[in-house]
């Protein structure tokens, strides 16, 4: 199993939308390396012919009746919004300038 480098931590942080500080990269690299080294023990079963379990209950497509019910008002739904305008969530720009 590969070791975790500072560069890999920076890559993971980008994927996970975490703007880590430079000193955090070194700190987490050592810790993540330790943890991944320990959890790699699961790979012993990689070749075994065992079906994977993703969930304790064998459920698929649980539906409830499609009925009109009371729901949050726009005011309630927006009550925690960091910014809002015209009954909508106001967010920073999503697309680039061009």
């Amino acid at each position, binding site marked *: 199993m590969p070791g975790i480098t500072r560069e890999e*931590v920076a890559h993971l942080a980008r994927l996970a*939308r975490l*703007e880590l500080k430079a000193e955090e990269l070194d700190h987490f690299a050592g810790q*993540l390396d330790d943890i991944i080294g320990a959890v790699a023990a*699961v790979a012993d079963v990689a070749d075994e012919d065992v079906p*994977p379990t993703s969930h304790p209950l064998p459920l698929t497509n649980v539906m*409830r009746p499609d009925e009109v019910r009371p729901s949050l008002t726009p005011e309630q739904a927006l009550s925690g919004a*960091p910014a809002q305008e015209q009954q909508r969530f106001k967010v920073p720009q999503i697309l680039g300038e061009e």
Partner: protein
Amino acid sequence: MSDLTRLTAAETATGIASGAFSAVEVTEAHLARIEAVDEKVHAFLHVDREGALAAARAVDAKRERGERLGPLAGVPLALKDIFTTEGMPTTAGSKILEGWVPPYDATVTRRLREADVVILGKTNMDEFAMGSSTENSAYGPTGNPWDLTRIPGGSGGGSSASLASFQAPLAIGTDTGGSIRQPAAVTGTVGVKPTYGGVSRYGMVAFSSSLDQAGPCARTVLDAALLHSVIAGHDPMDSTSVDQPVPDVVAAAREGDVRGMRVGVVKEFRGEGYQSGVMQRFDESVALLRELGAEVVEVSCPSFTKALAAYYLIAPSECSSNLARFDAMRYGMRIGDDGTRSAEDVTAITREAGFGDEVKRRVMLGTYALSSGYYDAYYGSAQKVRTLITRDFARAFESVDVLVSPTTPTTAFPIGERADDPMAMYLADLCTIPSNLAGNAAMSLPSGLSPEDGLPVGLQIIAPAMADDRLYRVGAAVEAALQARWGHPLIEEAPSL
């Protein structure tokens, strides 16, 4: 009136129903106790004095009108700060949710209110329930009432500490890898992780959705059963909620009889890393079960040795996905939005500032385990281990009714000791994790004090899925026999603070 805080929930409800004292008197006594000791313990993140008194007054009014009261009407409760509460802050122990007031109640919250349980406030926890010590809370640690320099367990350390310091007779926790049972064990209280799907997850801030389970915390087995029956049951708002009748846990707790039952001792839960005093109390509990008429056999669950590794791939993988919702757009913290930055940059800056170290570690670990190239080796293998663990349990339950083990390998460790050593911290959940992976039911109850440090030790009982009543049947029998031996409940030996 301060002795009202020493009563069990069952005694409190009976006293209110009979008019021996009022619900308002009970609530005032607990609010006074919180005022007196919580500066030292720090079990609560938010105390809802007005809301609690209003709920108590409503119970007293109902009684005056001659209305029938529910089995926990007027009993105060401490709610883990992971459940949404309309009009009351909910932080999940994270800075990123500081000041957030949810616009709706979780199903657990709603059921408590409908049962006239008095919600005193919200309790401290490891951020997003990730931790075994409550040190990962963004709002500071909680002390263990048995020794304030030690951890009260985690993630539900606020709930367990509130019980052990008599600030509330009931509390609610959530258990993803042991976050109800481990805090119960190290504080000398009772905690139950019901069968997966037994209690609705609607309105419970998600950590690892295939493992997360809400459950009752109390000072006695009967009190836990009464609370279990209030919060459990099918909920159409949670697609993973089990649509089957709730086992009669209250009747099982009142019976408390192990005669003729077969009890399995898990061979793998012993050895290096287990404190000798913990094993001493455990071996005594096993001997006691024999004396009480149970047949005890040793069982082997070889895959359990890989449970911790599988858990620390599955839980981080699910959390890396679940926590993507904290994007600084719709609720919670937003920083860095100066008009020049993109939404993506604002999200990354906010998450960096809003999440603590353990949350960042797990989000990155999960991102790693799910990334292409590593998926099969890590997440895929962990899912296979999950199958093997489920099979080990199934094989064991073919020959025994319940399994027993110590709840935790050690007693409460000092605050700070494992704070920056994630692997050492993870070992606290060695015995509790297999039940989360398999989705069965498990309880921790006090089994005595460890001789080397005088701190509480927990006995874990594990039952098959949807056989939660067996936990209470066995737990109540052990509790009664131990209390007869000690001459009082173990919690009476906790310092008065």
